[in-house]
């Protein structure tokens, strides 16, 4: 092996190690966040977005609880129909089947948090629930309990 190869070999090994290391590591850095205040209805993301059934307010409360405990993402939909998927509330990073989040299904809330936009989805890290008005979208009087009734 010549002198040139002797000089290049350690660099090549280092480059290979770095490449492999980067390939196996998790995300290298956090994505940029934007501090936001969001006001809207806490929703069952699947039923509301797909419109597969009536999924607004008190009429859908029961099903929204089923879906939240079933691990379907819970979101907030604001009056412009922007959807914010909740990934964390304060220090609580349980975003699947979290009974605490299920307790506020269908509530009208205002939250402060950090927004991360990625590939067409708004992800929200809630820092604080600033206001919780409970359920104000009373729909069951018109359409009953959706789906399946009581």
């Amino acid at each position, binding site marked *: 092996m010549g002198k040139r190869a002797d000089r290049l070999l350690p660099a090549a090994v280092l480059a290979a190690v770095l490449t492999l290391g980067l390939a196996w590591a998790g995300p*290298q850095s956090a994505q940029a966040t934007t501090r936001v205040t969001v006001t809207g209805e806490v929703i069952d993301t699947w039923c509301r977005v*797909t419109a597969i059934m009536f999924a607004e307010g008190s009429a859908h*409360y029961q099903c929204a609880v*089923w879906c939240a*405990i079933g691990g379907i993402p819970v979101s907030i939909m604001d009056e412009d129909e922007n959807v914010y*998927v909740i*990934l964390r509330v304060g220090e609580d990073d349980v*975003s699947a*089947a979290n009974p605490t989040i*299920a307790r506020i299904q269908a509530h009208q809330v205002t939250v402060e948090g950090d927004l991360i936009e990625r590939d067409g989805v708004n992800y929200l890290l809630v820092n604080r629930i600033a206001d919780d008005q409970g359920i104000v979208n009373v729909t069951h009087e018109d359409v009953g309990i959706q789906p399946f009734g009581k």
Partner: protein
Amino acid sequence: MRHLSLIILALALAHAQPALAANELGIDGEQPSQFEARAVDVLCELTGDCPQDCGAGTRQMGLLTDDGVLILVAKSSTLFAGGVLDLVAWCNRRVEVDGLLIDAEVTRFYMVQRLREPGTEKWTRARAFSHSWARANKQKNANRWFRKDPAIRALIEEFGPVGIPGAKIPVE
């Protein structure tokens, strides 16, 4: 921006195999999609907060395509249940999935219906929640699990079926 992400998503799925088996539901914006990706903990992917086990079923899971597109998995084949338990078994590993990509006006996500090891033949139905629920609740199966689940029953008992204690419930 939305158009850009749509293009990126289309490119990411360009190599997807034709979906022959996904059960279509007739949802606006649904697209049967079978592809390979890495199963990831979404919070980890976005923030760098990464428990080794992807949160062991407590965190929302996603699919990270080879082109770097993150797809939230919102639903599985179990009624009223998400795909977290189906995907967490593949935490940070490649998996082939079959299901529906829902590209709605307001957001997008994936319904996983089947999974398998890439390069193998045998599919597993995305019903991990059912199996887990039945084991945890000592039931033979998870039929109508949502009517029997203790956490759900406690919430409905406390707040009523419309979430407003004492509300008059219309006769069906």
